């Protein structure tokens, strides 16, 4: 039988192994990594709370010099959710947008200013659907489900 060891760390401060890097600003996060010639990415997000996607028109954005690629939900047919509540999620919205801020398209461009300008040229057309801003209204009889898990 294993004998339980005395708990030496309970109730004490155990500083993190990477604490000194984090408190000195030396820790490198993904956003801190810069390579020569690195492209800038920006995401176009839904301004609608709930809507059926009629069209995502990226043609004007693609014409902008310095824009290298744009992907939309049409390019993302695989779900990626790991958690059960997210297993029906796509990286970019496909049939519907389900909340204001849901990613709809992603732009790669030579720099951030160009990527931002490309976002302004993307045209999202939706048929708006009822949106619910309280738990009560979302649970009311006749409310439509935001997603099917």
């Amino acid at each position, binding site marked *: 039988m294993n004998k339980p060891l005395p708990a030496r760390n309970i109730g004490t*401060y155990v*500083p993190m192994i990477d604490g000194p890097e984090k408190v000195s600003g030396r820790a490198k*996060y993904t956003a801190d990594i810069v390579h020569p010639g690195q492209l800038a990415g920006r995401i176009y997000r839904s301004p609608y709370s709930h809507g059926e996607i009629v069209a995502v028109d990226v043609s004007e954005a693609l014409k902008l010099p310095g824009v290298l690629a744009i992907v939309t939900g049409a390019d993302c047919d695989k779900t990626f959710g790991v958690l059960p509540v997210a297993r029906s999620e796509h990286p970019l919205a496909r049939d519907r947008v389900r909340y204001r801020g849901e990613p709809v398209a992603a732009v790669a461009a030579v720099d951030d200013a160009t990527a931002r300008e490309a976002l302004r040229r993307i045209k999202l057309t939706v048929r708006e659907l009822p949106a619910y801003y309280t738990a009560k209204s979302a649970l009311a009889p006749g409310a439509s489900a935001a997603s099917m898990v």
Partner: protein
Amino acid sequence: MARLLEFTLNGRDRADAVADNILLLDYLREKAGLTGTKTGCDGGECGACTVLIDDRPVLSCLTLAATVQGRRIDTIESLGTGGQLSAVQRGFHEKLGSQCGYCTPGFIMASAGLLRKNPNPSEDEIKEALGSNICRCTGYVKIIEAVQYAAALNAQGVAP
């Protein structure tokens, strides 16, 4: 338009041609290579980009680089001497005021600004000084404790 910007960055004089529309945050990260200052919300809400201008905490994402002409800028990279952490850095490390660490440089600079002005702050003064900073993992109890510990270290002679 660009202009010649002369100022003091982390104790050293610096001169750089800087576009009028570049933010201090982007200047620090992209031109000066000081990525310890973090881009969080990019809109003045989270405090991750806090730096000191003449010892006063400022959000670098809302500051044009061109406006710091002749000023003294301190970033997280300026803290600590000879490989030793500063009092505030030690506080956040030893009192567990940092988890993922992304907000930490902003909190540390806001705290350093507070201790430079007020070496013995009350809990309310600490809360007020950190009112512009958001942490999404630790919560604020350990952070306040970190600043109190830093003030005690500072009283023993460790620079904030």
